[in-house]
C-alpha cells in the first residue's frame, strides 16, 4: 500500500482523466479564481484611479474637511468630515438597532407562539428585501414629518447634552433621522443572524437551567446569551458594515454640509457614500478621481469591519 503515492489522497478510484472532467473542473476553479480577481480588481482600480487626484491634492486628505476637487489644477479636498459623518450615522444606527434586534430575536425564538414565529421570520426577511431607495422615500416623505415634535421634546429636556443641542432643524432632515432610518434598515440583518444563533443553543443547556428552577429570563441570561454572544457581535458587525455603506437613505434625507458636528438635531454632516452619489453627476476635473479616493476609504473601512465580523462568527462555528 505504501508504495503507491496516491493511496493517501485517493478518495474516488480514478480511471483516465476524461476531457469533460478536465474542462468542468477547470471551469469551476476558474470561476472561483475570477471572484478573487474581481475583489482584487476593485481594490486595484480604486487605488489606480484615485492616484491622480491624491498626488495632486494640496491639502491633507485625512485631516481636511473641505471638498474643492472639481478643478483642473491644485485640488484641495479631504475626507475628515465625511468619515466622521459616516461613522456617526452608523454608530447611531447600531446603538438603536442592536438591543431591539436582540429583543425581536428573543421574541421569535422563545416568546412567540410557534406558528406566529414562522410568519415573523418571513416578515423579517421581507423587511430585509425592501430596497433602500424606498426606505429613503419613506424617510423623507413620512418619517421626517412625524419626528418634529419628538425632536422639540428632546431639545427642551435634553438640550444641555451637546448631542441634542438646539436649535432644532425645521425640516427634520438631520443626522438623527438618518441614523433612525439606517437602524430600521439594519434591524432585519442583525435579527436574522441573532435568531439563527439563538435557535442553535443546545436544548440540554436550556432545560438544565429550567430544571433548576430558573425563570425564563434567568434561563436566557444563563444559557442563551453566553452561547449567543459571538453571534450577536457578528450580526451587529454585519449590520454596521451595511450601515457604513448605505447611500440612498442618507442622500435623500440628510441636508448635508461638510462639517464635523455632534449636534444631531441640526442639519449638517455628510457620509462618504451619500457624498459620492450626490457629487458624482456634477464632478469635473479632478472630481471623479477624488470621489474614487473617498470610495477607497469607505471600501477600506467596510472591509475591516466585515473581516472582523466574519472572524468572530467563524470562531463561534469552531466551538459549537
Amino acid at each position, binding site marked *: 500500500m505504501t508504495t503507491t503515492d496516491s493511496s493517501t489522497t485517493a478518495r*474516488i478510484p480514478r480511471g483516465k482523466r476524461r476531457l*469533460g472532467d478536465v*474542462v*468542468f*473542473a477547470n471551469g*469551476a476553479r*476558474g*470561476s*472561483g*479564481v*475570477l*471572484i478573487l480577481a*474581481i*475583489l482584487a*480588481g*476593485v481594490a486595484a*482600480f480604486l487605488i*489606480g*484611479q484615485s492616484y491622480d487626484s491624491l498626488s495632486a491634492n494640496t491639502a491633507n486628505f485625512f485631516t481636511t474637511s473641505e471638498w474643492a476637487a472639481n478643478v483642473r489644477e491644485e485640488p484641495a479636498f479631504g475626507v475628515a468630515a465625511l468619515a466622521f459623518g459616516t461613522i456617526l450615522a452608523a454608530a447611531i444606527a447600531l446603538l438603536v438597532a442592536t*438591543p*431591539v434586534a436582540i*429583543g425581536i430575536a*428573543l*421574541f421569535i425564538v422563545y*416568546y*412567540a407562539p410557534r406558528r406566529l414565529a414562522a410568519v*415573523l421570520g418571513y416578515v423579517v426577511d421581507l423587511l430585509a*428585501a*425592501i*430596497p*433602500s*431607495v*424606498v426606505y429613503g*422615500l*419613506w424617510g423623507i416623505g*413620512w418619517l421626517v414629518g*412625524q419626528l418634529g415634535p419628538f425632536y422639540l421634546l428632546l431639545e427642551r429636556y435634553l438640550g444641555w447634552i451637546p448631542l441634542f443641542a438646539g436649535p432644532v432643524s425645521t425640516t427634520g432632515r438631520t443626522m438623527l433621522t438618518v441614523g433612525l432610518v439606517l437602524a430600521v434598515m439594519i*434591524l432585519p440583518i442583525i435579527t436574522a443572524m441573532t435568531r439563527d444563533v439563538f435557535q442553535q443553543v443546545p436544548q440540554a443547556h436550556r432545560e438544565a437551567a429550567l430544571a433548576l428552577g430558573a*425563570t*425564563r*429570563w*434567568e434561563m436566557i441570561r444563563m444559557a442563551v446569551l453566553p452561547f449567543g454572544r459571538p453571534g450577536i457581535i457578528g450580526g451587529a458587525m*454585519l449590520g454596521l458594515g451595511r450601515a*457604513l*455603506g448605505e*447611500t*440612498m437613505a442618507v*442622500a435623500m434625507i440628510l441636508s448635508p454640509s461638510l462639517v464635523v458636528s455632534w449636534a444631531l438635531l441640526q442639519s449638517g454632516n455628510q457620509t462618504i*457614500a451619500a457624498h459620492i452619489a450626490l457629487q*458624482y453627476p456634477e464632478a469635473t476635473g479632478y472630481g*471623479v478621481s477624488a*470621489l*474614487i479616493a473617498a*470610495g477607497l476609504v*469607505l*471600501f477600506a473601512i467596510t*472591509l475591516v469591519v*466585515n*473581516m472582523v465580523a*466574519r472572524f468572530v462568527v467563524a470562531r463561534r462555528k469552531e466551538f459549537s
Partner: protein
Amino acid sequence: MATTTDPTSTGAAGGAHLRNAGLFGGTLPRWVPPALLVVLAGAVAGVLLAAGAFNAPLLAVLTTVAYAVAITVASAIVENRRRATDRLVTAVVYTCFALAMVPLVSLLWTVLVNGLQRLDGYFLSVSMNGVTPSMDAGGVYHAIVGTISITGFAALISIPIGLMTAIYLVEYGRGRLKQAITFFVDVMTGIPSIVAGLFVVALWMLLFGPGNTNGAAGAISLSVLMIPVVVRSCEEMLRLVPNELREASYALGVPKWLTIVKVVLPTAIAGITTGVMLALARVIGETAPLILTAGSSAVAINWNLFDGQMMSLPVFIYSQVRMGGAINYERAWAAALTLILVVMLLFLLARLVSRFFAPKLGR
C-alpha cells in the same frame, strides 16, 4: 411555567406554608397581565383626553411604561423579585417586537396609499420623453425597460459564475484556495453598493475614457453585488444533496462532471432557483451603483445596453425626489409601489418554487 401550584388558588388552603417558605411563592393569575394592560390603556387614554393632549403614539408609549412598572411592582409584591424581573423582561421583549412592526407597517401603508394615487395602466405604459418635470403626465415604462435589461444582464453574468464557484466549493475545492474563496465571498457580500459602482466607473474610464455611461456598466456593477449572494445560496443547496446519490452515480461508472450535471444539479435545482430569485430581489432595488454607471437623467425608452444612459425604477424614484415638486413625489411613490410589488412577486415566486419543486428526498 416552572410552578407546580395551582395558579388560581391564592387562598390560605393546602400548601400555604410551603409558599410562605418561599419555595414556590405566590403566582399572579393568568388573566392579570392582559387585564392590567387594558385597564392601564384606558386610564392613560382618560388622562390624556382630560389633558387635551391625546394622540396615539403618546398613548402607546405611556401605556407601555405604565404597564412595565405596574406588572413589575405587582409581581414583586405577590410573587418574588426574580419573577418580577422575568415579567419586566417579558414586557420589554414584547415592546421590542411591537416597535419593529411600526416602521414595517407604516412603510407599507404609506407606499400603498401614496402610490395608488398615480399607479395605473397609463403610468406603466409611457415614458418621460418630452415631459417637463412638473407636467401632469409621464410614466415609468422606460425605467421598467431599463430595470429588466440591466438586472437581466446582471443575472446572465452572475448566475454562471456564481453557480460554478459554488460547484467548485462543494464538489472540487480543498485546501487554501477553497478557504480563500469562502472567506472572500463572505467579505464581498459586505462591499458597499456605491463602491461596486465606483469600481465599474474606474474600469470604464480605463477602457472607454471618461463620461461613458450605459446599461452594461450598470449590469456589471450589479453583478459584483449579486455574485456572492448567488454563491452563498447555491453552495448551501448543493451541500444538502445527499452523498449517497453521488456515490450511486460513481458506482455506475458515470464521470464526475456528468454526475454533477445530471444528478447533483437536478436534485438541488429548486433551491438554486429560489436562491437566484432572492438574489435578484436584492439587486433589483440597488440604486447607488446605477446612478454612477447607467446615468440618472435618461427619459426615453432605451433597449440597448451598450449605447447611452438607461433609467431604472430605483433611480427613477431617486431622481424624482431630487426634483422635489408635488407631482414628482407622486411619481416617486407610484414607482416605489411598482418596485415593491416586483420584489414581492420575486419573493412569492421563490417561495412557490421551493415549495412545489423541491426534490422528494425522503423516499
